[in-house]
Protein backbone atom coordinates (compact mmCIF):
# COMPACT_ATOMS: atom_id res chain seq x y z
CA UNK A 1 0.00 0.00 0.00
CA UNK A 2 1.63 3.21 -1.10
CA UNK A 3 -0.88 5.77 0.06
CA UNK A 4 -3.61 5.58 2.63
CA UNK A 5 -5.94 8.29 3.82
CA UNK A 6 -8.41 7.65 6.59
CA UNK A 7 -11.39 9.65 7.85
CA UNK A 8 -10.34 12.89 6.18
CA UNK A 9 -12.45 15.92 7.05
CA UNK A 10 -11.94 19.41 5.69
CA UNK A 11 -14.16 22.48 5.96
CA UNK A 12 -13.74 25.93 4.47
CA UNK A 13 -15.87 28.04 6.73
CA UNK A 14 -19.40 26.76 6.25
CA UNK A 15 -18.51 24.68 3.21
CA UNK A 16 -17.82 21.02 3.80
CA UNK A 17 -15.07 20.18 1.30
CA UNK A 18 -14.37 16.64 2.53
CA UNK A 19 -16.51 14.48 4.76
CA UNK A 20 -15.08 11.29 6.22
CA UNK A 21 -13.12 10.26 3.13
CA UNK A 22 -11.12 7.04 3.08
CA UNK A 23 -8.69 6.22 0.32
CA UNK A 24 -6.29 3.32 -0.04
CA UNK A 25 -4.16 2.88 -3.14
CA UNK A 26 -2.13 -0.17 -4.05
CA UNK A 27 1.48 0.10 -5.10
CA UNK A 28 1.76 0.63 -8.86
CA UNK A 29 -1.88 1.49 -9.25
CA UNK A 30 -3.36 4.20 -11.46
CA UNK A 31 -6.02 5.67 -9.23
CA UNK A 32 -8.42 8.42 -10.24
CA UNK A 33 -10.54 10.84 -8.24
CA UNK A 34 -13.48 11.70 -10.46
CA UNK A 35 -16.19 14.24 -9.89
CA UNK A 36 -17.64 17.60 -10.90
CA UNK A 37 -15.95 20.83 -9.82
CA UNK A 38 -16.41 21.52 -6.14
CA UNK A 39 -16.75 17.85 -5.18
CA UNK A 40 -13.57 17.95 -3.06
CA UNK A 41 -11.30 15.94 -5.33
CA UNK A 42 -8.67 18.67 -5.66
CA UNK A 43 -8.76 19.37 -1.94
CA UNK A 44 -8.09 15.69 -1.27
CA UNK A 45 -5.17 15.74 -3.71
CA UNK A 46 -3.73 18.84 -2.05
CA UNK A 47 -3.98 17.17 1.34
CA UNK A 48 -2.10 14.18 -0.03
CA UNK A 49 0.51 16.53 -1.54
CA UNK A 50 0.95 18.32 1.78
CA UNK A 51 -0.20 21.68 0.40
CA UNK A 52 -3.22 21.65 2.68
CA UNK A 53 -3.87 20.32 6.18
CA UNK A 54 -6.97 18.23 6.86
CA UNK A 55 -9.18 19.29 9.79
CA UNK A 56 -8.93 15.71 10.97
CA UNK A 57 -7.90 12.35 9.62
CA UNK A 58 -4.67 10.57 8.79
CA UNK A 59 -2.53 10.43 5.68
CA UNK A 60 -0.02 7.58 5.46
CA UNK A 61 2.72 7.18 2.89
CA UNK A 62 4.30 3.72 2.66
CA UNK A 63 3.13 3.02 6.19
CA UNK A 64 4.37 6.27 7.75
CA UNK A 65 2.07 8.95 9.08
CA UNK A 66 2.74 12.09 7.02
CA UNK A 67 -0.44 14.01 7.88
CA UNK A 68 1.38 17.08 9.20
CA UNK A 69 4.55 16.76 7.13
CA UNK A 70 4.94 19.83 4.86
CA UNK A 71 4.99 19.39 1.08
CA UNK A 72 8.72 19.97 0.78
CA UNK A 73 9.46 17.04 3.09
CA UNK A 74 7.06 14.58 1.47
CA UNK A 75 8.16 12.04 -1.08
CA UNK A 76 5.23 12.91 -3.29
CA UNK A 77 5.32 15.08 -6.40
CA UNK A 78 2.60 16.89 -8.26
CA UNK A 79 1.84 17.81 -11.86
CA UNK A 80 -0.12 21.03 -11.51
CA UNK A 81 -3.11 21.99 -13.62
CA UNK A 82 -1.30 25.10 -14.90
CA UNK A 83 1.94 23.06 -15.03
CA UNK A 84 3.59 25.80 -12.91
CA UNK A 85 6.92 25.63 -14.71
CA UNK A 86 9.38 28.26 -13.52
CA UNK A 87 9.34 30.79 -16.39
CA UNK A 88 12.87 32.08 -15.78
CA UNK A 89 14.50 28.63 -15.81
CA UNK A 90 15.34 26.44 -18.78
CA UNK A 91 13.66 23.06 -19.15
CA UNK A 92 16.83 21.45 -17.84
CA UNK A 93 16.83 23.61 -14.70
CA UNK A 94 13.09 23.15 -14.25
CA UNK A 95 13.54 19.39 -14.21
CA UNK A 96 16.65 19.67 -12.02
CA UNK A 97 14.82 21.90 -9.52
CA UNK A 98 13.85 19.16 -7.06
CA UNK A 99 17.33 17.69 -7.01
CA UNK A 100 18.93 21.12 -6.62
CA UNK A 101 16.61 21.72 -3.65
CA UNK A 102 18.10 18.56 -2.18
CA UNK A 103 21.58 19.96 -2.86
CA UNK A 104 22.47 17.38 -5.46
CA UNK A 105 25.05 18.48 -8.02
CA UNK A 106 27.19 17.27 -10.88
CA UNK A 107 26.93 14.33 -13.24
CA UNK A 108 24.14 12.53 -11.34
CA UNK A 109 21.81 15.46 -11.81
CA UNK A 110 22.66 15.84 -15.50
CA UNK A 111 22.17 12.14 -16.09
CA UNK A 112 18.82 11.96 -14.34
CA UNK A 113 17.49 15.16 -15.90
CA UNK A 114 18.43 14.00 -19.39
CA UNK A 115 16.87 10.59 -18.76
CA UNK A 116 13.66 12.24 -17.54
CA UNK A 117 13.54 14.60 -20.53
CA UNK A 118 14.20 11.65 -22.86
CA UNK A 119 11.32 9.77 -21.24
CA UNK A 120 8.93 12.52 -22.38
CA UNK A 121 10.78 13.07 -25.69
CA UNK A 122 11.97 16.56 -24.83
CA UNK A 123 15.74 16.02 -24.51
CA UNK A 124 16.56 18.16 -27.55
CA UNK A 125 14.75 21.15 -26.04
CA UNK A 126 16.56 21.20 -22.71
CA UNK A 127 17.85 24.77 -23.13
CA UNK A 128 14.48 26.28 -24.04
CA UNK A 129 12.43 28.42 -21.71
CA UNK A 130 8.87 27.35 -20.84
CA UNK A 131 7.44 30.31 -22.77
CA UNK A 132 8.80 28.72 -25.96
CA UNK A 133 6.75 25.54 -25.51
CA UNK A 134 3.26 24.45 -26.53
CA UNK A 135 0.73 23.33 -23.93
CA UNK A 136 1.39 19.65 -24.59
CA UNK A 137 5.14 20.14 -24.30
CA UNK A 138 4.77 22.05 -21.03
CA UNK A 139 2.67 19.22 -19.68
CA UNK A 140 5.37 16.69 -20.57
CA UNK A 141 8.07 18.77 -18.91
CA UNK A 142 5.91 19.10 -15.80
CA UNK A 143 5.61 15.33 -15.79
CA UNK A 144 9.37 14.88 -16.15
CA UNK A 145 10.04 17.45 -13.44
CA UNK A 146 7.86 15.52 -11.00
CA UNK A 147 8.95 11.99 -11.95
CA UNK A 148 12.69 12.71 -11.91
CA UNK A 149 12.49 12.87 -8.11
CA UNK A 150 11.28 9.27 -8.02
CA UNK A 151 8.28 9.98 -5.80
CA UNK A 152 6.41 7.21 -4.01
CA UNK A 153 3.23 8.62 -5.45
CA UNK A 154 2.73 10.95 -8.40
CA UNK A 155 -0.21 13.33 -8.14
CA UNK A 156 -1.81 14.77 -11.25
CA UNK A 157 -4.22 17.69 -10.87
CA UNK A 158 -6.33 17.82 -14.06
CA UNK A 159 -3.14 17.75 -16.14
CA UNK A 160 -4.97 17.48 -19.45
CA UNK A 161 -7.69 20.07 -19.01
CA UNK A 162 -5.71 22.72 -20.92
CA UNK A 163 -5.11 20.52 -23.96
CA UNK A 164 -7.36 20.25 -26.99
CA UNK A 165 -9.46 17.11 -27.42
CA UNK A 166 -7.29 15.30 -29.94
CA UNK A 167 -4.05 15.88 -28.06
CA UNK A 168 -5.79 14.92 -24.84
CA UNK A 169 -6.57 11.46 -26.20
CA UNK A 170 -2.97 10.93 -27.28
CA UNK A 171 -1.66 12.13 -23.92
CA UNK A 172 -4.04 9.86 -22.02
CA UNK A 173 -2.64 6.84 -23.80
CA UNK A 174 0.93 8.02 -23.25
CA UNK A 175 0.28 8.64 -19.59
CA UNK A 176 -1.17 5.17 -19.10
CA UNK A 177 1.74 3.55 -20.94
CA UNK A 178 4.26 5.53 -18.92
CA UNK A 179 2.62 4.56 -15.65
CA UNK A 180 2.61 0.89 -16.64
CA UNK A 181 6.26 1.05 -17.63
CA UNK A 182 7.36 2.76 -14.40
CA UNK A 183 5.06 0.70 -12.18
CA UNK A 184 4.50 3.75 -9.99
CA UNK A 185 1.40 4.82 -8.12
CA UNK A 186 -0.36 7.65 -9.96
CA UNK A 187 -3.28 9.54 -8.46
CA UNK A 188 -5.18 11.60 -11.02
CA UNK A 189 -7.83 14.21 -10.41
CA UNK A 190 -10.24 14.81 -13.27
CA UNK A 191 -13.81 15.73 -14.12
CA UNK A 192 -13.57 13.97 -17.47
CA UNK A 193 -15.21 10.53 -17.17
CA UNK A 194 -13.80 9.30 -20.46
CA UNK A 195 -10.30 10.22 -19.37
CA UNK A 196 -10.84 8.46 -16.06
CA UNK A 197 -12.04 5.26 -17.74
CA UNK A 198 -9.16 5.30 -20.24
CA UNK A 199 -6.24 5.58 -17.83
CA UNK A 200 -7.37 4.21 -14.48
CA UNK A 201 -7.12 0.91 -12.69
CA UNK A 202 -9.56 2.12 -10.07
CA UNK A 203 -11.76 5.18 -9.82
CA UNK A 204 -13.33 6.91 -6.87
CA UNK A 205 -16.39 8.93 -7.87
CA UNK A 206 -16.90 11.88 -5.54
CA UNK A 207 -19.84 14.11 -4.76
CA UNK A 208 -20.08 16.94 -2.25
CA UNK A 209 -17.02 15.90 -0.28
CA UNK A 210 -17.82 12.20 -0.15
CA UNK A 211 -16.72 9.15 -2.11
CA UNK A 212 -19.84 7.71 -3.72
CA UNK A 213 -18.32 4.63 -5.29
CA UNK A 214 -14.77 3.35 -5.47
CA UNK A 215 -14.21 0.48 -7.89
CA UNK A 216 -12.23 -0.74 -10.89
CA UNK A 217 -13.01 1.30 -14.01
CA UNK A 218 -15.02 -1.43 -15.67
CA UNK A 219 -17.08 -2.29 -12.63
CA UNK A 220 -17.84 1.38 -12.09
CA UNK A 221 -19.21 1.74 -15.58
CA UNK A 222 -21.05 -1.56 -15.73
CA UNK A 223 -22.32 -1.76 -12.14
CA UNK A 224 -22.91 1.80 -10.92
CA UNK A 225 -24.27 1.78 -7.36
CA UNK A 226 -26.63 4.70 -7.81
CA UNK A 227 -28.14 7.11 -10.25
CA UNK A 228 -25.40 9.72 -9.67
CA UNK A 229 -22.61 7.37 -10.74
CA UNK A 230 -24.69 5.95 -13.60
CA UNK A 231 -25.32 9.46 -14.94
CA UNK A 232 -21.82 10.81 -14.34
CA UNK A 233 -20.09 8.04 -16.26
CA UNK A 234 -21.66 7.82 -19.67
CA UNK A 235 -25.39 7.71 -20.26
CA UNK A 236 -27.96 5.52 -18.59
CA UNK A 237 -31.66 4.69 -18.94
CA UNK A 238 -33.36 4.66 -15.58
CA UNK A 239 -36.42 2.44 -15.15
CA UNK A 240 -38.49 2.44 -11.97
CA UNK A 241 -39.93 -0.85 -10.75
CA UNK A 242 -40.95 -3.23 -7.98
CA UNK A 243 -39.35 -6.56 -7.18
CA UNK A 244 -41.44 -9.50 -8.38
CA UNK A 245 -41.20 -13.23 -8.97
CA UNK A 246 -38.36 -13.80 -11.50
CA UNK A 247 -37.42 -10.15 -11.96
CA UNK A 248 -38.64 -6.58 -11.62
CA UNK A 249 -42.13 -5.43 -12.56
CA UNK A 250 -41.95 -2.14 -14.48
CA UNK A 251 -44.12 -0.01 -16.76
CA UNK A 252 -42.47 -1.92 -19.63
CA UNK A 253 -43.51 -5.24 -18.15
CA UNK A 254 -41.59 -7.86 -16.16
CA UNK A 255 -37.84 -7.48 -16.72
CA UNK A 256 -35.46 -10.30 -15.94
CA UNK A 257 -32.02 -9.47 -14.58
CA UNK A 258 -29.01 -11.56 -13.56
CA UNK A 259 -28.51 -9.86 -10.22
CA UNK A 260 -31.79 -9.45 -8.34
CA UNK A 261 -32.22 -6.21 -6.40
CA UNK A 262 -31.99 -5.94 -2.63
CA UNK A 263 -34.87 -3.49 -2.53
CA UNK A 264 -38.61 -3.94 -2.79
CA UNK A 265 -39.12 -0.86 -4.89
CA UNK A 266 -36.44 1.08 -6.74
CA UNK A 267 -34.71 1.82 -10.01
CA UNK A 268 -32.84 -0.13 -12.66
CA UNK A 269 -30.18 1.28 -14.97
CA UNK A 270 -29.22 0.11 -18.42
CA UNK A 271 -26.66 1.64 -20.82
CA UNK A 272 -27.88 2.60 -24.33
CA UNK A 273 -25.46 0.11 -25.92
CA UNK A 274 -27.01 -2.72 -23.90
CA UNK A 275 -30.39 -2.24 -25.49
CA UNK A 276 -30.11 -4.33 -28.66
CA UNK A 277 -32.15 -4.60 -31.84
CA UNK A 278 -33.89 -7.85 -32.78
CA UNK A 279 -35.54 -8.74 -36.13
CA UNK A 280 -38.07 -10.89 -34.25
CA UNK A 281 -39.44 -11.11 -30.75
CA UNK A 282 -36.52 -11.98 -28.40
CA UNK A 283 -36.82 -14.76 -25.83
CA UNK A 284 -36.32 -12.55 -22.73
CA UNK A 285 -36.88 -8.88 -21.95
CA UNK A 286 -38.32 -8.30 -25.41
CA UNK A 287 -40.19 -5.09 -26.15
CA UNK A 288 -42.07 -3.84 -29.17
CA UNK A 289 -41.19 -0.12 -29.42
CA UNK A 290 -41.64 2.84 -31.70
CA UNK A 291 -38.69 4.98 -32.87
CA UNK A 292 -39.45 8.63 -32.04
CA UNK A 293 -36.07 10.02 -33.10
CA UNK A 294 -33.01 8.59 -34.81
CA UNK A 295 -29.81 10.62 -34.93
CA UNK A 296 -26.90 9.59 -37.09
CA UNK A 297 -23.70 10.02 -35.05
CA UNK A 298 -21.20 8.54 -37.49
CA UNK A 299 -19.99 5.53 -35.55
CA UNK A 300 -23.46 4.80 -34.18
CA UNK A 301 -27.12 5.74 -34.30
CA UNK A 302 -28.63 7.37 -31.26
CA UNK A 303 -32.22 6.12 -31.17
CA UNK A 304 -35.05 7.40 -28.96
CA UNK A 305 -37.78 4.91 -28.15
CA UNK A 306 -41.32 4.90 -26.78
CA UNK A 307 -42.73 3.64 -24.49
CA UNK A 308 -40.34 4.22 -21.61
CA UNK A 309 -38.47 7.13 -23.23
CA UNK A 310 -35.51 4.80 -23.74
CA UNK A 311 -32.23 5.78 -25.37
CA UNK A 312 -30.60 3.12 -27.46
CA UNK A 313 -27.35 3.03 -29.35
CA UNK A 314 -27.44 0.99 -32.57
CA UNK A 315 -25.16 0.19 -35.49
CA UNK A 316 -25.90 2.53 -38.43
CA UNK A 317 -26.02 -0.44 -40.83
CA UNK A 318 -29.28 -1.53 -39.17
CA UNK A 319 -30.95 1.35 -40.97
CA UNK A 320 -33.31 2.20 -38.12
CA UNK A 321 -35.40 5.25 -39.01
CA UNK A 322 -37.84 7.55 -37.28
CA UNK A 323 -41.32 6.04 -37.15
CA UNK A 324 -40.18 2.39 -37.29
CA UNK A 325 -41.71 -0.23 -35.05
CA UNK A 326 -38.95 -2.57 -33.86
CA UNK A 327 -38.20 -5.38 -31.43
CA UNK A 328 -35.52 -4.71 -28.76
CA UNK A 329 -34.01 -6.68 -25.92
CA UNK A 330 -32.85 -5.22 -22.60
CA UNK A 331 -29.88 -7.51 -21.93
CA UNK A 332 -30.55 -9.18 -18.55
CA UNK A 333 -26.83 -9.10 -17.61
CA UNK A 334 -26.66 -5.35 -18.13
CA UNK A 335 -29.73 -4.37 -16.11
CA UNK A 336 -28.34 -3.02 -12.87
CA UNK A 337 -30.40 -2.35 -9.75
CA UNK A 338 -29.50 1.05 -8.26
CA UNK A 339 -29.35 1.97 -4.59
CA UNK A 340 -30.58 5.17 -2.96
Amino acid sequence: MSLEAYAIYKNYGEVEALHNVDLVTERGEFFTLLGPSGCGKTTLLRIIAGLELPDSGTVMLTGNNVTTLPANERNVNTVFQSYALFPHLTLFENVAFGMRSRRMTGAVVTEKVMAALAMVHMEDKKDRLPSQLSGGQKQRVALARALVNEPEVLLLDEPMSALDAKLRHAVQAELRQLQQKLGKTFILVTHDQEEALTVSDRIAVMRQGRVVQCAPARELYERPVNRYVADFLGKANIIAGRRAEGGVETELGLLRLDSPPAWEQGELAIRPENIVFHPERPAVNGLRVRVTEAFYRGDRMEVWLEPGNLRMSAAPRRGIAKGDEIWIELLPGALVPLHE
Partner: protein
Amino acid sequence: MSSHHHLVWNGELTTRLRLIRRGMYLAAPGMLWILLFLALPSLLLIVVSMTTRGDYGQIEWVFSPDNFTRLLGFSSYGWSADYLWILFRSVWVAFWSTLICVLLAYPLCFHIANRAPEKRYFWLTLIIIPFWTNLVIRAYAWLLVLAPQLPFAKFAAVLGIIPEGSPLYPSAFAVYLGMVATFLPFVAMPLYANVEKLDWALVEAAKDLYAGRARIFWHAIWPQTVPGLSVGITLTFIPAMGMFVVPDLLGGAKYMLVGNLIQQQFGTSRDWPFGAAVSLALMVLTLVGLRVQRKHSGEGGVA
Protein backbone atom coordinates in the same frame (compact mmCIF):
# COMPACT_ATOMS: atom_id res chain seq x y z
CA MET B 1 2.30 59.92 -66.04
CA SER B 2 5.52 57.95 -65.86
CA SER B 3 6.43 59.42 -62.45
CA HIS B 4 3.22 58.04 -60.92
CA HIS B 5 3.92 54.37 -60.59
CA HIS B 6 0.77 52.87 -59.24
CA LEU B 7 1.07 50.28 -56.56
CA VAL B 8 -1.26 48.35 -54.29
CA TRP B 9 -0.82 48.95 -50.60
CA ASN B 10 -3.09 47.20 -48.07
CA GLY B 11 -5.63 46.63 -50.82
CA GLU B 12 -5.56 50.25 -51.94
CA LEU B 13 -4.46 51.49 -55.33
CA THR B 14 -2.09 54.38 -54.74
CA THR B 15 1.31 55.85 -55.62
CA ARG B 16 4.58 55.97 -53.77
CA LEU B 17 4.40 59.74 -53.54
CA ARG B 18 0.96 59.67 -51.97
CA LEU B 19 2.08 57.08 -49.43
CA ILE B 20 5.08 59.15 -48.39
CA ARG B 21 2.94 62.24 -48.03
CA ARG B 22 0.39 60.40 -45.94
CA GLY B 23 3.13 58.95 -43.75
CA MET B 24 4.43 62.44 -43.11
CA TYR B 25 1.01 63.69 -42.08
CA LEU B 26 0.67 60.81 -39.64
CA ALA B 27 4.13 61.27 -38.15
CA ALA B 28 3.96 65.05 -37.99
CA PRO B 29 2.29 65.54 -34.57
CA GLY B 30 4.75 63.16 -32.89
CA MET B 31 7.72 64.72 -34.64
CA LEU B 32 6.55 68.19 -33.73
CA TRP B 33 6.14 67.16 -30.12
CA ILE B 34 9.61 65.69 -29.92
CA LEU B 35 11.10 68.71 -31.67
CA LEU B 36 9.33 71.23 -29.46
CA PHE B 37 9.66 69.56 -26.08
CA LEU B 38 12.77 67.44 -26.37
CA ALA B 39 15.11 68.33 -29.20
CA LEU B 40 14.94 72.12 -28.97
CA PRO B 41 15.23 72.41 -25.18
CA SER B 42 18.09 69.90 -25.10
CA LEU B 43 19.88 71.79 -27.82
CA LEU B 44 19.32 75.04 -25.98
CA LEU B 45 20.66 73.49 -22.78
CA ILE B 46 23.80 72.29 -24.54
CA VAL B 47 24.39 75.66 -26.18
CA VAL B 48 23.80 77.62 -22.97
CA SER B 49 26.05 75.27 -20.99
CA MET B 50 28.94 76.38 -23.19
CA THR B 51 28.36 80.12 -22.86
CA THR B 52 29.70 82.46 -20.18
CA ARG B 53 27.98 84.30 -17.36
CA GLY B 54 28.09 88.08 -17.73
CA ASP B 55 28.82 90.38 -14.78
CA TYR B 56 25.11 91.02 -14.21
CA GLY B 57 24.05 87.40 -14.57
CA GLN B 58 23.18 87.66 -18.23
CA ILE B 59 24.28 85.10 -20.81
CA GLU B 60 27.33 86.20 -22.77
CA TRP B 61 27.66 84.38 -26.06
CA VAL B 62 31.32 83.62 -25.47
CA PHE B 63 31.80 79.90 -25.95
CA SER B 64 34.17 77.89 -23.75
CA PRO B 65 34.25 74.57 -21.89
CA ASP B 66 34.86 76.44 -18.62
CA ASN B 67 31.54 75.41 -17.03
CA PHE B 68 32.41 71.74 -17.40
CA THR B 69 35.94 72.09 -16.07
CA ARG B 70 34.43 74.03 -13.17
CA LEU B 71 32.00 71.19 -12.52
CA LEU B 72 34.94 68.82 -12.47
CA GLY B 73 36.45 71.02 -9.74
CA PHE B 74 39.00 73.17 -11.59
CA SER B 75 38.99 76.89 -10.89
CA SER B 76 41.47 79.74 -10.60
CA TYR B 77 41.91 78.76 -6.94
CA GLY B 78 42.99 75.20 -7.76
CA TRP B 79 41.09 71.91 -7.69
CA SER B 80 38.26 71.08 -5.33
CA ALA B 81 35.97 68.05 -5.24
CA ASP B 82 32.91 70.01 -4.02
CA TYR B 83 30.77 69.70 -7.14
CA LEU B 84 31.79 66.11 -7.80
CA TRP B 85 30.84 65.33 -4.23
CA ILE B 86 27.43 66.82 -4.80
CA LEU B 87 26.95 64.69 -7.91
CA PHE B 88 28.18 61.58 -6.12
CA ARG B 89 26.03 62.31 -3.08
CA SER B 90 22.97 62.67 -5.32
CA VAL B 91 23.51 59.24 -6.83
CA TRP B 92 24.27 57.83 -3.39
CA VAL B 93 21.16 59.26 -1.75
CA ALA B 94 18.99 58.24 -4.70
CA PHE B 95 20.41 54.72 -4.55
CA TRP B 96 19.80 54.23 -0.85
CA SER B 97 16.40 55.91 -0.94
CA THR B 98 15.37 53.54 -3.71
CA LEU B 99 16.73 50.50 -1.89
CA ILE B 100 14.94 51.43 1.33
CA CYS B 101 11.72 51.98 -0.62
CA VAL B 102 12.05 48.51 -2.18
CA LEU B 103 12.75 46.88 1.18
CA LEU B 104 9.70 48.57 2.69
CA ALA B 105 7.41 48.11 -0.31
CA TYR B 106 7.97 44.37 -0.51
CA PRO B 107 6.44 43.37 2.83
CA LEU B 108 3.89 46.16 2.48
CA CYS B 109 2.59 44.82 -0.83
CA PHE B 110 2.36 41.25 0.43
CA HIS B 111 0.60 42.48 3.53
CA ILE B 112 -2.01 44.29 1.43
CA ALA B 113 -2.40 41.45 -1.05
CA ASN B 114 -3.11 39.07 1.83
CA ARG B 115 -5.95 41.20 3.21
CA ALA B 116 -9.56 40.47 2.33
CA PRO B 117 -10.36 42.14 -1.02
CA GLU B 118 -12.56 44.87 0.48
CA LYS B 119 -9.82 45.83 2.96
CA ARG B 120 -7.17 46.10 0.27
CA TYR B 121 -8.75 49.29 -1.04
CA PHE B 122 -8.45 50.84 2.38
CA TRP B 123 -4.73 50.09 2.49
CA LEU B 124 -4.14 51.21 -1.08
CA THR B 125 -5.94 54.45 -0.32
CA LEU B 126 -3.61 55.03 2.61
CA ILE B 127 -0.69 54.72 0.20
CA ILE B 128 -2.27 56.94 -2.42
CA ILE B 129 -3.40 59.81 -0.16
CA PRO B 130 0.13 61.33 0.14
CA PHE B 131 0.20 61.21 -3.66
CA TRP B 132 -2.55 63.82 -3.73
CA THR B 133 -0.74 66.13 -1.32
CA ASN B 134 1.73 68.73 -2.51
CA LEU B 135 5.35 67.71 -2.04
CA VAL B 136 6.33 71.00 -0.36
CA ILE B 137 3.49 70.69 2.11
CA ARG B 138 4.57 67.16 2.93
CA ALA B 139 8.17 68.26 3.45
CA TYR B 140 7.00 70.99 5.84
CA ALA B 141 4.87 68.43 7.63
CA TRP B 142 7.99 66.42 8.28
CA LEU B 143 9.62 69.54 9.77
CA LEU B 144 6.74 69.65 12.24
CA VAL B 145 7.01 65.95 13.02
CA LEU B 146 10.73 66.28 13.67
CA ALA B 147 10.39 69.51 15.69
CA PRO B 148 12.13 69.67 19.11
CA GLN B 149 8.84 69.76 21.04
CA LEU B 150 7.66 66.43 19.68
CA PRO B 151 8.48 63.00 21.15
CA PHE B 152 10.71 61.89 18.26
CA ALA B 153 13.26 64.67 18.79
CA LYS B 154 12.94 64.39 22.58
CA PHE B 155 13.58 60.67 22.43
CA ALA B 156 16.65 61.19 20.21
CA ALA B 157 17.88 63.77 22.73
CA VAL B 158 17.48 61.30 25.60
CA LEU B 159 19.55 58.80 23.63
CA GLY B 160 22.15 61.53 23.17
CA ILE B 161 21.98 61.55 19.38
CA ILE B 162 21.11 65.26 19.24
CA PRO B 163 21.48 68.02 21.83
CA GLU B 164 18.57 68.77 24.16
CA GLY B 165 15.95 71.07 22.61
CA SER B 166 17.07 70.79 18.99
CA PRO B 167 15.11 69.34 16.08
CA LEU B 168 15.91 66.17 14.11
CA TYR B 169 16.59 68.31 11.04
CA PRO B 170 18.64 69.23 9.13
CA SER B 171 20.19 65.82 8.88
CA ALA B 172 20.83 62.90 6.55
CA PHE B 173 18.20 61.02 8.50
CA ALA B 174 15.60 63.69 7.78
CA VAL B 175 16.51 63.70 4.08
CA TYR B 176 16.13 59.92 3.81
CA LEU B 177 12.88 60.06 5.73
CA GLY B 178 11.53 62.66 3.33
CA MET B 179 12.80 60.82 0.27
CA VAL B 180 11.38 57.44 1.30
CA ALA B 181 8.05 58.99 2.26
CA THR B 182 7.91 60.70 -1.11
CA PHE B 183 8.86 57.76 -3.27
CA LEU B 184 7.43 54.75 -1.44
CA PRO B 185 4.14 54.89 -3.39
CA PHE B 186 6.06 54.91 -6.67
CA VAL B 187 7.63 51.57 -5.79
CA ALA B 188 4.69 50.12 -3.92
CA MET B 189 2.02 50.70 -6.58
CA PRO B 190 3.64 48.89 -9.54
CA LEU B 191 4.96 46.21 -7.22
CA TYR B 192 1.51 45.69 -5.78
CA ALA B 193 0.12 45.21 -9.28
CA ASN B 194 2.49 42.25 -9.62
CA VAL B 195 1.96 40.84 -6.15
CA GLU B 196 -1.82 40.94 -6.44
CA LYS B 197 -1.82 38.70 -9.51
CA LEU B 198 1.05 36.52 -8.34
CA ASP B 199 0.81 32.94 -9.59
CA TRP B 200 0.82 31.01 -6.30
CA ALA B 201 0.94 27.71 -8.15
CA LEU B 202 4.65 28.43 -8.69
CA VAL B 203 5.11 28.74 -4.95
CA GLU B 204 3.33 25.44 -4.45
CA ALA B 205 5.40 23.85 -7.22
CA ALA B 206 8.58 25.00 -5.48
CA LYS B 207 7.32 23.58 -2.18
CA ASP B 208 6.37 20.37 -3.91
CA LEU B 209 9.92 20.17 -5.25
CA TYR B 210 11.41 20.33 -1.76
CA ALA B 211 12.45 24.01 -1.84
CA GLY B 212 13.08 25.80 1.45
CA ARG B 213 11.99 29.37 2.17
CA ALA B 214 14.91 31.07 0.42
CA ARG B 215 14.59 28.93 -2.68
CA ILE B 216 10.84 29.46 -2.81
CA PHE B 217 11.41 33.20 -2.68
CA TRP B 218 14.15 33.37 -5.31
CA HIS B 219 12.55 31.06 -7.83
CA ALA B 220 8.82 31.38 -7.29
CA ILE B 221 8.24 34.91 -5.99
CA TRP B 222 11.14 37.19 -6.90
CA PRO B 223 11.05 36.62 -10.69
CA GLN B 224 7.35 37.42 -10.73
CA THR B 225 7.92 40.78 -9.03
CA VAL B 226 10.85 41.92 -11.17
CA PRO B 227 8.68 43.76 -13.74
CA GLY B 228 6.90 45.80 -11.06
CA LEU B 229 10.10 46.46 -9.15
CA SER B 230 11.79 47.53 -12.34
CA VAL B 231 9.11 50.12 -13.02
CA GLY B 232 9.14 51.25 -9.39
CA ILE B 233 12.91 51.61 -9.29
CA THR B 234 12.91 53.70 -12.46
CA LEU B 235 10.11 55.90 -11.14
CA THR B 236 12.06 56.42 -7.93
CA PHE B 237 15.73 56.50 -8.77
CA ILE B 238 15.53 59.01 -11.62
CA PRO B 239 13.48 61.73 -9.89
CA ALA B 240 15.28 61.04 -6.61
CA MET B 241 18.55 62.08 -8.24
CA GLY B 242 17.10 65.44 -9.19
CA MET B 243 15.07 66.00 -6.03
CA PHE B 244 15.60 69.42 -4.44
CA VAL B 245 12.58 70.19 -2.24
CA VAL B 246 13.25 67.48 0.31
CA PRO B 247 17.02 68.01 0.71
CA ASP B 248 16.49 71.76 0.71
CA LEU B 249 14.01 71.74 3.58
CA LEU B 250 15.19 68.71 5.52
CA GLY B 251 18.89 68.53 4.69
CA GLY B 252 20.02 72.12 4.90
CA ALA B 253 23.19 73.52 3.37
CA LYS B 254 25.31 70.55 4.44
CA TYR B 255 23.26 68.11 2.45
CA MET B 256 23.20 69.78 -0.93
CA LEU B 257 22.20 67.55 -3.84
CA VAL B 258 22.50 68.23 -7.54
CA GLY B 259 18.89 69.41 -7.67
CA ASN B 260 19.66 72.12 -5.14
CA LEU B 261 22.79 73.09 -7.03
CA ILE B 262 20.83 73.55 -10.25
CA GLN B 263 18.11 75.48 -8.47
CA GLN B 264 20.76 77.71 -6.93
CA GLN B 265 22.45 78.45 -10.25
CA PHE B 266 19.25 79.40 -12.00
CA GLY B 267 18.05 81.22 -8.86
CA THR B 268 20.19 83.14 -6.41
CA SER B 269 23.50 82.74 -8.25
CA ARG B 270 22.02 83.81 -11.57
CA ASP B 271 24.56 81.67 -13.40
CA TRP B 272 22.48 80.08 -16.15
CA PRO B 273 25.44 78.74 -18.13
CA PHE B 274 26.81 76.79 -15.15
CA GLY B 275 23.28 75.70 -14.21
CA ALA B 276 22.84 74.34 -17.72
CA ALA B 277 26.12 72.44 -17.46
CA VAL B 278 25.06 70.83 -14.17
CA SER B 279 21.65 69.98 -15.65
CA LEU B 280 23.40 68.31 -18.55
CA ALA B 281 25.50 66.29 -16.11
CA LEU B 282 22.32 65.18 -14.32
CA MET B 283 20.77 64.14 -17.62
CA VAL B 284 23.82 62.04 -18.47
CA LEU B 285 23.71 60.43 -15.01
CA THR B 286 20.01 59.68 -15.52
CA LEU B 287 20.61 58.03 -18.86
CA VAL B 288 23.45 55.95 -17.42
CA GLY B 289 21.20 54.96 -14.52
CA LEU B 290 18.41 53.93 -16.89
CA ARG B 291 20.84 51.91 -18.96
CA VAL B 292 22.18 50.01 -15.94
CA GLN B 293 18.68 49.41 -14.62
CA ARG B 294 17.40 48.22 -18.01
CA LYS B 295 20.27 45.79 -18.32
CA HIS B 296 19.72 44.28 -14.88
CA SER B 297 15.98 43.91 -15.15
CA GLY B 298 16.52 42.37 -18.57
CA GLU B 299 18.48 39.53 -17.03
CA GLY B 300 16.18 38.56 -14.21
CA GLY B 301 13.02 39.83 -15.83
CA VAL B 302 9.98 37.78 -16.66
CA ALA B 303 7.91 39.07 -19.51
